[in-house]
């Protein structure tokens, strides 16, 4: 056997595989670009002032907008954040302070489980917890479902951030006679605030586009509604309903809404990434 040919063959094979891997790896950018470009092209022509400020018109009438879905989305996501952020951060603090212990173990396991629960299942459960006892679909039930989805991300990011803060900081605080809660809230948390904030933004970006848990909770509403106790429209729900309808005008409106939703979510992600890079936080 000629060794020279052999090594050439092996090098060639190595190069070939490398090329194949690079090809497959970068092929993944194609669908993302296609989706972004397509939605931008279809959506940008639909967006104008009327689109952003009017409620939808009935089928067959031209014009109309998505203001009900925009305001609904903002309200539902805000309410979800108000519910989830304090609980998520406190639980993250708890888990980072208690690395061992039986209760902390089960608590951590629960967060892990929660992270894997399909969103539609959370929708079902919140339907039985909130919608059925009250007797009507409502925006607040949608917010509760989304809040449950936010929790694992918030807990994880808080826990991971606070774990990185040097123990000596805490010792210094305690040595000065600060009570425990002040050490946590005034020393530890401010040190990790950038990590916690990016966790908050990530979790908001994650739920802003969630549809499945809203199907049986916020339900959707063709009119403008700001009452949290009543059914409310949201952007993802509206895109789902309009996209699966047979009407072309509705598809057009869904493209516009999809563009707004897509860019909001991507922007939130990019901002989060830039801030974490700037603060040098590892998530």
């Amino acid at each position, binding site marked *: 056997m000629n060794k020279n040919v052999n090594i050439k063959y092996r090098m060639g094979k190595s190069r070939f595989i*490398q090329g194949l891997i690079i090809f497959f790896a970068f092929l993944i950018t194609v669908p*993302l670009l296609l*989706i972004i470009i397509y939605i931008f092209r279809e959506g940008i022509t639909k967006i104008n002032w009327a689109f952003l400020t009017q409620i939808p018109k009935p089928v067959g009438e031209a014009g109309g907008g998505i203001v009900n879905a925009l305001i609904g989305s903002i309200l539902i996501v805000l309410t979800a954040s108000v519910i989830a952020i304090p*609980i998520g951060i406190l639980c993250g603090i708890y888990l980072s302070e208690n690395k061992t212990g039986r209760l902390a173990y089960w608590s951590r396991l629960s967060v892990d489980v929660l992270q894997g629960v399909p969103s539609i299942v959370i929708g079902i459960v919140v*339907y039985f917890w909130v919608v059925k006892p009250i007797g009507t679909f409502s925006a607040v039930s949608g917010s509760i479902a989304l809040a449950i989805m936010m929790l694992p991300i918030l807990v994880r990011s808080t826990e991971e951030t606070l774990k990185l803060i040097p123990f000596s900081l805490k010792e210094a605080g305690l040595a000065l006679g600060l009570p425990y809660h002040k050490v946590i809230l005034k020393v530890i948390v401010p040190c990790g605030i950038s990590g916690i904030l990016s966790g908050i933004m990530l979790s908001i970006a994650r739920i802003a586009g969630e549809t499945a848990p809203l199907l049986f909770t916020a339900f959707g509403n063709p009119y403008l509604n700001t009452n949290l106790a009543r059914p409310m429209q949201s952007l993802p729900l509206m895109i789902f309903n309009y996209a*699966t309808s047979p009407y072309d005008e509705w598809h057009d409106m869904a493209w516009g809404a999809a563009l707004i939703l*897509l860019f909001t*979510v991507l922007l939130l992600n990019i901002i989060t990434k830039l801030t974490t890079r700037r603060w040098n936080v590892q998530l």
Partner: protein
Amino acid sequence: MDVQKLKTKAKSSNGMIRAESLFKRTLVGVGIAMIVLVVGLMITLIIESIPSMKNLGIKYLWGRTWDPVNNVYGALPFLIGTLLTSFLALIISIPFSFAIAIYLGEYNPKGWLSNFLKNTVELIAAVPSVIYGFWGLLVLVPLVRSLEIKVGVLPYGIGIFTASLILAIMIIPYAASLGREMIRLVPSPLKEGAYSLGATRYEVIKNVVIPYTKSGLFAGILLSLGRALGETMAVTMVIGNTSMIPDSIFGPGNTMASVIANEFTEADHTLYLSALIELGLVLFIVTVIINMIGKRIIKRFTNE
């Protein structure tokens, strides 16, 4: 005067102690709340699916017909639909996610090009699933339809195959980013040893990196599978929603998640609703088990 001052001081330090214990109790309370939340999720699902368990028994799982009008409920079409779409998506996604993991972990861990690819992968995970569904419905479905005409099968356009394609794009980031981290953990002395023996880059990857990270890569696949099983909106929009056992991978079907999304608000009697919730319970248990196994493997791998 002094006594007064001391008293207020004592009071404030008493208040401090009270605040401190209150804070500690709040933390423990939140920790317990997490457990209660998850146990509550499970209990609610079980209680609400009792009517279906009682009436339909275990044969619910392999009943072949789903006919709410005649009160016949069999989950087999959805089980098959879910397994088919998820595994097909997994098979399509694996070459891509492994290529990304190896490229970012081994070939090019730093630099703007790898940053670009890393961010792209993360953005793919960030795109809402309803947008994937919408794009799939209006762009991918016509493409698949023309492909089906060429292949010579019934040109539905919608169906298991289209749903798997969309799902594959959506789950690539999970296995890719986990695989990348696992590959980074390979100790460089191992690789250097192989290089010094004259191995080429491909041989190092094949004989050192992949065997070393095998379990980690497997965990990444499991987490992707967990995502694929529970994914609802994108699948619902392109799968065709027929409650029959799909006759081929190009035919329309339904998954567990998509049938819940479609029929939950229409379920008008207890047994119907309960049968749907039992589907949710099955989905919950399966995804939780898969995720737990995946996380266990990762934990063991990173601790070693």
